């Protein structure tokens, strides 16, 4: 029975909307880093902007698709604002600027002076922005159990959200596959290798970098929407640590590979849950408290990641000849 609980809870992560949200964010980051070589250390900023853009316009009563469009527009504007002054900088400076900008967005979002719009640090609660999405569901009301997992059909952390989230992942994977193998993707990879070459061959590096920043940011914004739909918009839940989870996922799966983000996200969350659940079931709570288990889970995953970066720097399915972490 205990083993069954561990199994059920762990593999629930495989279909969880949050896992899908991380896949989308990592796909966006893969466009930035894997294809273009941009060190974006603020993917959570794009996610938070997307979440705000969607939730705020929803609570104002906008159409669902108009809200998604608003989220994408915000990401685009942010990409341009961020990109124009920083894309001329080297990769390390870009990393600092993006990290700082993401924090700026989070801190502005939670500031008390904006409570009427963003809800301050309390955020925006789900009933304000999930109704339209839930009403769009074609599924009947009630709960369904498929194999071991039982969720509501339409409400909050629902089957409907799972279907939409993973459908978006599928579309994103197909799009990146197409982009990755197109002449456009080829130029981006050229910029990753040496932007002066691209310049000497008559292509506008800034234009391509801006497009890349926008596109990866747009996937980040979509990911932010999926991330907040089963919970609420909480500025602090989309902070720095989310950016680092996304990086972890990308490097785990393999940067510059198309299915790397999917594999990385599924593996990270399943493994983390396996480790935590096993400790919860297997070790007496007198020995380790549940808080400590939470932290220890991350420690173990962290060690595993260090080993990965040392022994398999290209990630699980990356091509070492193309892009490895310490190349």
């Amino acid at each position, binding site marked *: 029975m205990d083993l069954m609980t561990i199994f059920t809870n762990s593999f629930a992560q495989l279909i969880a909307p949050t896992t899908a949200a991380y896949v989308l964010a990592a796909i966006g980051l893969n466009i930035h880093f894997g294809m273009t070589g941009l060190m974006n250390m603020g993917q959570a900023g794009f996610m938070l902007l997307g979440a705000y853009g969607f939730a705020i316009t929803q609570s104002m009563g906008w159409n669902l698709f108009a809200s998604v469009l608003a989220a994408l527009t915000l990401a685009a504007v942010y990409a341009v604002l961020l990109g124009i002054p920083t894309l001329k900088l080297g990769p390390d400076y870009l990393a600092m600027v993006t990290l700082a900008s993401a924090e700026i967005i989070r801190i502005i979002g939670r500031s008390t002076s904006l409570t009427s719009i963003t809800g301050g640090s309390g955020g925006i609660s789900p009933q304000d922005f999930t109704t339209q999405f839930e009403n769009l569901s074609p599924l009947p009301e009630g709960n369904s159990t498929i194999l071991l997992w039982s969720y509501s059909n339409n409400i909050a952390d629902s089957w409907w959200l799972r279907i939409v989230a993973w459908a978006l992942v599928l579309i994103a994977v197909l799009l990146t596959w197409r*982009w990755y193998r*197109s002449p456009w993707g080829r130029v981006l990879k050229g910029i990753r290798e040496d932007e002066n070459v691209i310049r000497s061959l*008559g292509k506008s590096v800034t234009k391509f970098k801006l497009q890349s920043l926008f596109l990866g940011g747009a996937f980040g914004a979509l990911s932010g929407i999926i991330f907040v739909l089963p919970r609420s918009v909480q500025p602090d839940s989309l902070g720095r640590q989310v950016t680092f989870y996304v990086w972890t996922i990308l490097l785990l799966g393999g940067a510059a590979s198309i299915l790397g983000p999917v594999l990385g996200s599924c593996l990270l969350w399943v493994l983390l849950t396996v480790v935590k659940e096993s400790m919860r079931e297997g070790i007496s709570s007198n020995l380790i408290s549940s808080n400590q288990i939470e932290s220890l889970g991350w420690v173990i995953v962290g060690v595993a990641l260090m080993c990965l970066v040392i022994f398999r720097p290209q990630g699980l399915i990356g091509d070492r000849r193309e892009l490895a972490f310490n190349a």
Partner: protein
Amino acid sequence: MPDTTVQTGTPFQDLPAARAARSEDPQSAAVDYSGTVAKDLAYVEHEPGVHKPDPILVADNVTRRFGGIAAVDVGHFEIERHGITALIGPNGAGKTTFFNLMTGFDKPDTGTWQFDGNDLASVSSEKVARMGMVRTFQLTKVMNRLTVLDNMLIGAPDQPGEGMLRSLFPMLWKSREKEIITQAESLLDRFLLLKKKDDYAGSLSGGQRKLLEMARALMSNPQLVMLDEPMAGVNPALKQSLLDHIVALRDEGTSVLFVEHDMNMVRHIADWVTVMAEGKIVAEGPPRDVMNDPAVVDAYLGAHANIDLGDDSVLQDVE
């Protein structure tokens, strides 16, 4: 003595034979560009900043200072169309800086220059390349983690698939892609790299990278290629074929400007030599005259420039 040119495709060791063939048949010389360029340049005076009959690049008063040092201070400079112009000079003479200025990779403090009649001052490097002036780099830049073929394809202009949205619809760019693949493969074949086309460029040797960089620059069919030390680190056998390629380029109508320290190369393929020292152009002329110019010999070549230092008799003479 205008006749310092090479016939298409002949290696430079066969120069005497080529010259003999040409003198027997004076008509043949006028057919390709090498002949016309040699004829045109024969009337040009051998002095710095001289005007040429048909310049493709004209620079005026170009200066670039780094702190108090004038890295480049060129009063007037012209590059003859369809010719092979060599830019030589001691280390730190400002050759590469001049390259960077001309191609928009660096901004000059003063100066104007025209390429094919179009003003180029403060035009960005990518626009310069699109106008038909493509450069290579002294420290070879290949895109290591792309295949050799992809390196070449990036060099091609007018690929509609390089638009972010258009790239999603292969029917919009597949036909152009086929064209440029054919072009890339024929260039790679010429540069002896066809067998390597699916390898990552990072796996190539230093000399092969030089070849790849040059081949890539030719993908856009430029009017003027600017080669920064194309021979550095290239083995003698490859050097030979590189020289042939450069000459063939000229004969097909491309103008070539190159920076080089290898005096054999300069002597054998250049139609015109420009010498820079301390940022200024100090001498110009056909290779043979320039290399006998006492100022150039003192500043750059040294007394034994024309002698093979591998020859032991030279050392005995010195002793």
